[in-house]
């Protein structure tokens, strides 16, 4: 079946390549990547996306497809690793599996795998990976309990990996991010003892020493992070526009669909709205921001962690909001949301896009 599929896709691939050579547009790059993916060549599909993105870095569809192919390849590799681990479990495979899971933010699955690994052999590497999982959970939730758990796991990893600088550096980053300067300075000193003469570490040690005078204790620093929901230096990050492109194209594309009433991209107090105009656009954006704030607060109080999606249905239709770290995408349609629109919406969240383009703003 696989061979037949490859044979059948050969002609289509050739046509897609020729079309791209004649007219190198984002659409043709996308078609070629799709043809590769259909033929089961996810690696080639990724390369086509990367090439397309290097030529058209602003293109949202290409970057979305690139993410999807990466996800597909990752799932494929995870399945292979699970198969290999079932036959011959060994540390290198566990490590790769857990690292893929941590990088793809599947922390619960990663923790399960690490627990199984630790139960099998008390590998110190597993303890370090467990500390990374707990750290990632703290950075997502910013709760005191998660912070304490992360610090305890880091201390255990440092104890079991005495010559390894990775857990020490992770602890240094953690303490710096929560603003426990005194503890961070002590940790930097330990890092320097393990790796003397490192210029970057010496610089950090000097900065931390200067701040250690009026440093809050660890518990107080954790409490502040839990209360404000912000890590040290995140206010500055809010202004940094790290987007590869604007979301305007995606908003316009979604707004042209027949049953879509409004599409929004919200970041800070700015909203880009496609669909409604004037005061209605303003009111809609304000409502979305209000729903988002309430939902985030409810999720925090219920211990559900980071919000991925809020969906409301009623006589008005379906309003779906996908929040990112600092931004959110929202779509209002008269019928059901549908798979493709949901994916587009989820890809909009977390783009951290510059909101300085044309469009209705409120």
């Amino acid at each position, binding site marked *: 079946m696989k061979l037949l599929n490859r044979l059948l896709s050969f002609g289509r691939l050739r046509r897609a390549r020729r079309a791209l050579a004649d007219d190198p547009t984002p659409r043709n790059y996308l078609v070629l990547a799709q043809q590769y993916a259909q033929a089961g060549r996810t690696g080639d599909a990724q390369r086509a996306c990367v090439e397309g993105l290097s030529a058209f870095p602003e293109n949202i569809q290409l970057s979305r497809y690139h993410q999807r192919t990466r996800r597909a390849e990752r799932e494929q590799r995870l399945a292979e690793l699970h198969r290999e681990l079932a036959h011959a479990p060994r540390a290198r495979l566990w490590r790769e599996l857990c690292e893929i899971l941590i990088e793809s933010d599947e922390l619960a699955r990663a923790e399960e795998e690490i627990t199984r690994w630790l139960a099998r052999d008390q590998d110190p590497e597993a303890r370090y990976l467990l500390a990374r999982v707990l750290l990632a959970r703290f950075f997502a939730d910013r709760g005191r309990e998660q912070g304490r758990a992360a610090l305890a796991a880091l201390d255990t990893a440092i104890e079991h990996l005495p010559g390894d600088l990775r857990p020490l550096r992770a602890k240094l980053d953690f303490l710096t991010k929560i603003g426990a300067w005194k503890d961070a300075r002590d940790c930097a000193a330990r890092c320097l003892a393990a790796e003397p003469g490192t210029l970057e570490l010496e610089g950090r040690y000097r900065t931390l020493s200067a701040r250690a005078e009026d440093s809050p204790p660890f518990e107080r620093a954790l409490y502040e992070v839990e209360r404000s929901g912000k890590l040290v230096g995140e206010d500055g990050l809010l202004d940094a526009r790290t987007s590869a492109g604007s979301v305007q194209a995606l908003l316009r594309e979604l707004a042209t669909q027949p049953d879509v009433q409004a599409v929004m991209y919200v970041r800070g107090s700015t909203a880009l709205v496609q669909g409604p105009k004037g005061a209605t656009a303003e009111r809609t954006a304000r*409502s979305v921001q209000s729903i988002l704030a309430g939902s985030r607060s409810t999720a925090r109080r219920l211990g559900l962690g980071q919000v991925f999606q809020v969906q409301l249905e009623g006589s008005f239709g379906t309003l779906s909001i996908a929040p990112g770290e600092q931004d959110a995408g929202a779509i209002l349609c008269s019928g059901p949301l549908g798979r493709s629109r949901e994916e587009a919406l989820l890809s909009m969240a977390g783009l951290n896009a510059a909101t300085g383009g044309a469009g209705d703003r409120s």
Partner: protein
Amino acid sequence: MIALLEPLARMPGVEFVLLISHDGVPIAHVHRAADPIHEDSLAALAAAWLNDIGAAVAPLGWHAPVRACLRAARGTLVLRRSESACLVVCLGRETSPEDVRLSMDGTLARIERAKHGRGQAASLPPAPIPYRQGSTPVEEGLSPTSRSGQPPGN
């Protein structure tokens, strides 16, 4: 009421099922989760969230939503609102809100029917002449007028 919630709570991925009033008072609950969940706080938070949403969409001239889902890192909260109550379901990480859509609608419809049935039974005055136990069954195809002695068709 718990018997009506039980089938929904038995579905895979469903951790907690709670029926609350619109002002956040728990009416009945069934839970399958290993960790105990405080139904009072869950009811209060869920009702407060739904009321907040209602207030947020009111300036747009919209009615309060009938269904609300909150998908988060460690689970999903699904709320389904009816005239008299609100059904709250907590789902595990791997379960999609779409998996319980039909069951939630069915459960809430059954609850509403049960409530209306009870309400009607309570509000109906007692019949002036009680029915006889051995009364003859009503014949099919005959209209009520024909039963009262009038010939059919007149």
